[in-house]
């Protein structure tokens, strides 16, 4: 045991004041200390992408970062996608196109796709495939995930343009 540190994590626009050991990974702090269990933990060594969240403006694997390192940076998790009762276009597209079965990998894919479509709304098929290949899904065979992200891409475009 090493001494615990006080820190504040700003997740989906809300501050969470927590007290953790420096060795606590960001994903564990998000789940255990902030109570946001939407972000999943799979491999815990950077391979599966289930723990993907957005820190600052970049998608990262939250099992490969310590919570103390995220101090002062805005964090977005899957809980922040929906606006009240209205699901995010990506969430709706995953439902419509059967982009999930057990749902274990889904939060990671959603946050990765959200980050990618916000940053490059016009991303081409090949690059999109390359980006999505970084996360593992044991159920869907990926095709429906790709279909869902492409469908959401269309829907997200005008919104991104309007927001700018």
């Amino acid at each position: 045991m090493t001494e615990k540190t006080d820190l504040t994590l700003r997740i989906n626009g809300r501050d969470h004041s927590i007290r953790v050991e420096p060795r606590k990974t960001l994903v564990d702090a998000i789940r255990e200390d902030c109570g946001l269990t939407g972000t999943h933990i799979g491999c815990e060594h950077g391979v599966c992408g289930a723990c993907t969240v957005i820190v600052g403006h970049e998608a990262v694997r939250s099992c490969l970062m310590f919570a103390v390192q995220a101090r002062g940076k805005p964090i977005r998790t899957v809980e922040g996608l929906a606006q009240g009762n209205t699901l995010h276009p990506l969430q709706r597209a995953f439902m419509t196109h059967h982009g999930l079965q057990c749902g274990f990998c889904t939060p990671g894919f959603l946050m990765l796709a959200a980050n990618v479509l916000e940053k490059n709304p016009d991303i081409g098929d090949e690059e999109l495939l390359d980006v999505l290949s970084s996360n593992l899904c044991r159920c869907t065979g990926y095709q429906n995930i790709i279909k869902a992200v492409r469908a959401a891409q269309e829907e997200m475009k005008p919104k991104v343009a309007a927001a700018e």
Partner: protein
Amino acid sequence: MSGRPGLLRLGPNCEKACDEKADGEEGTHLRLLPVAAVPYTRGCLCIRTAMKPPAFQYHDPKTLTEAVSLLGTLDNAKLLAGGQSLMPMLNMRFVLPDHVIDLNRVEGMSGIKEAGGTLEIGAMTRQRDLEFSDLVKAKCPLLHQAIMHIGHRQTRNRGTIGGSLCHLDPAAELVLVAMAHDATVVVVGPNGTREIAFADFPAGYLTPAIELNEIVTAIRIPLWPAGHKAAFIEFARRHGDFAIVSAAALLQIDGGKIARASLTIGGVAVAPVRAAEVENAITGQAPSTALFAKVCESCRSFEAMADIHASAEYRQHLAAVLSRRALEKAAGLADNAPWNRAH
């Protein structure tokens, strides 16, 4: 704190836990692992029961001077850059430091600039920043091509160039580029700054030739003249995986003849090797597929390692094939070749 011979350097926590006692709160056991078990990234052995980082004290210096002084005074300390290699090793408890010194908030350790024909890149520059650098794209096409093969978008968002060079995976793309370009590594320690030629940088498997109290601050890449040709090729099971074998070719072609050549092969030995025999044989010659096919056969005689991914013979075969392809691609002779696709 010295480890036992052939075993990882251990912290005091571990020595205790390794008597097969439960490790405090998590009730997990730790085992001593042979050093050979470290390359989790290249075929995980996963001999472990713990999947959480060990306890350590965290240090968050803001200046390089502060970081150097912490590293010089703390026992069994580890530097943390992008964490994309170190964090998995901590999570698996392959590495058990008593102190972690985080370089992420240290001022002035990142940036890409050109001066006097040399590209100087700060050690903490993210791989993602290299990917989008117009300077890198225009001046160092080999680095530009290689970067897209490193892991994935999320890992490049955090992974740094300094971390990749210091982790020194035999198949790491940035290590290959540094070797191909005869780069220089700049390190700073309690006795000041020194430069290390990249050929002398690998000291062994996953081990750079820097002292325990030294920090890599930058890498200097001597640029080739404008208009030079570069090609990077790797063979991996899937895009984004570590390569089994990779090859990098640099060619300067004047008046239809090769005026200067660099050919480097990664993933065959513990560090990338320069194919000096091939470089000499093609210098002064006109590039042709027949020439490259003939001279690259010598790459079959490189001493090669074997692991669960590939035998030594297979690696030697790949070394010859990928060398030829890299040279053909650099010389513009591979535009219609079936293997020459986007990736």
